[in-house]
């Protein structure tokens, strides 16, 4: 428990440092968010008035402290245009969590099954195909894979919808609309996770006590569940946790490609409107989710290694 709390404190401290760095960097870089958002035609007086009304004329530490305390209370602040970010997010956050949550489950299941099959016959045709296939999938950008999936499954075969249509109640018209986005986002990550899982299982299986258990006649199933998987679990959990960040970043691209109504589209929109404050807050949100995932991974590692130190 003490170890867990110590790990938690380190993660929380690091998050604070990263948030401060992100906030300060966005502030220190040469762009003026208000000027950018209002465009070159706005008069200097107007820009100054907007800056004052948003409280951007105060010193950096005061602004950061305000922003941070808002964040803690679940208030993400306001955009440069003066809209509350919470209102903008609305249902979008839930939509993105649905997409990334489903993709995470997909990655978890596919990567475990794939790695298990691969580990069972590492030198067969399946193993060799997996070695090449995963490394190419890992390197394929989500929007390239998504485009090719749409071409095949929507255009040629006509099986799945190519884009997302939202009904009047704000829900997806049909759950089938999630299939291609989940595949486009999930397959590269599943390939990456498969490689991690396979390496972790191979490393655990090579430990002397696993060999000993086999020699003692412990059934194979029990060897795997009691000796191999607990040893591989910390590596697998840590990789899944760090994957959460790239999953969220990938969701920005995939949501744009499929016109999916999530928070990622808001990120893409902040680029168009050049809204730095919006992007900083969404980055903070992303960092928060990643830290939560890392803390869970820390807990799994400490639990799996209990009594083994």
């Amino acid at each position: 428990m003490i170890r867990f709390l110590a790990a938690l404190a380190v993660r929380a401290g690091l998050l604070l440092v990263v948030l401060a760095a992100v906030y300060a960097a966005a502030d220190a870089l040469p762009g003026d968010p208000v000027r950018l958002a209002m465009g070159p035609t706005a008069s200097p007086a107007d820009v100054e008035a907007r800056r004052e009304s948003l409280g951007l004329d105060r010193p950096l530490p005061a602004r950061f402290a305000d922003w941070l305390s808002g964040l803690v209370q679940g208030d993400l602040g306001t955009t440069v245009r003066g809209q509350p970010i919470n209102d903008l997010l609305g249902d979008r956050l839930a939509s993105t969590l649905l997409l990334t949550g489903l993709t995470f489950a997909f990655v978890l299941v596919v990567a475990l099954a794939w790695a298990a099959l691969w580990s069972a016959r590492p030198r067969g045709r399946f193993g060799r195909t997996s070695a090449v296939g995963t490394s190419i999938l890992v390197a394929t950008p989500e929007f390239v894979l998504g485009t090719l999936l749409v071409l095949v499954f929507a255009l040629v075969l006509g099986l799945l919808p190519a884009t997302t249509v939202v009904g009047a109640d704000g829900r997806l018209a049909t759950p089938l609309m999630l299939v291609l986005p989940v595949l486009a986002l999930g397959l590269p990550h599943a390939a990456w996770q498969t490689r991690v899982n396979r390496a972790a299982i191979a490393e655990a299986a090579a430990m002397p006590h696993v060999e000993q258990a086999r020699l003692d006649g412990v059934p194979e199933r029990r060897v795997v569940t009691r000796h191999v998987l607990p040893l591989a679990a910390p590596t697998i959990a840590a990789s899944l946790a760090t994957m959460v960040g790239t999953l969220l970043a990938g969701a920005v691209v995939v949501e744009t490609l499929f016109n999916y109504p999530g928070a990622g589209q808001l990120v893409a929109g902040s680029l168009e409107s050049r809204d730095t404050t919006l992007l900083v807050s969404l980055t903070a949100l992303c960092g928060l989710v990643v830290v939560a995932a890392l803390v869970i991974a820390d807990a799994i590692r400490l639990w799996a290694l209990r009594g083994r130190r």
Partner: protein
Amino acid sequence: MKRRLVPLAAWVALVALAPLLPITAGEGAMPFADPGAGHPLGTDALGRDVLAGAFEGGLLLLTVAAAIALIVTTLSALLGSLAALHRRAGRAIDAAADAFILVPPVIGVLLVVLAWPGGGLPALLAATVLFGVPYCAKVMRSAASAVAATGYVEAARASGESTARVIAVEMLPNLAPTLVTQLGLRFTEGLYVVSAVAFLRLPGVLDEGNWAVMVRDNAPGMLLNPWAVAAPAACLLITVILVHTGLGARREEP
């Protein structure tokens, strides 16, 4: 090893020389026209020739990715070697890598380039390198640690050689295999980040005439002329596959 590089080299030569071909994109034709006379792959959203666009859309993207790969690998090799020799530098790299996990590269790069208007391509390069180095330096350090523990490095240090000289003369030459693999990995990672940024269309940076932007701009007309998105997407996929077969490279190597 050398034979494996032939397809990659041929592809790079094609991408580099294709813009010189006397095929002009043209303008004023019907948008999203079917493949036909004069337009072997049809036309795009603005009525330009898709084949000509695909020929011209790769060079800048690949050049930027190659520059990122070169800078990240070099910096990481130096930092990783330093960390293998000095424990404190090693701890700093670990802390940096832990911190950078919290901000995914694509988001971080978007943030830097957005907050730095007029930064253009140099801002994109700087940000991608910043977000690429901590992880790569960590990999380099574990490779360099094995070299640092060898007798000749210890002998060189004991005889009073400077750290810079030990790294340059004793360590880097022995890291060559890792350097080549990392170069391939950093190239695919660089291409991934840069094409994602181009796809999301940051104003002023790689915002026209490359494969990623072609996919984004032509997606609405996919039903009318699928080639307008299939061609640039296929070009990116071919690059990824050939870099893998040529350099044994994956985006990462667990």
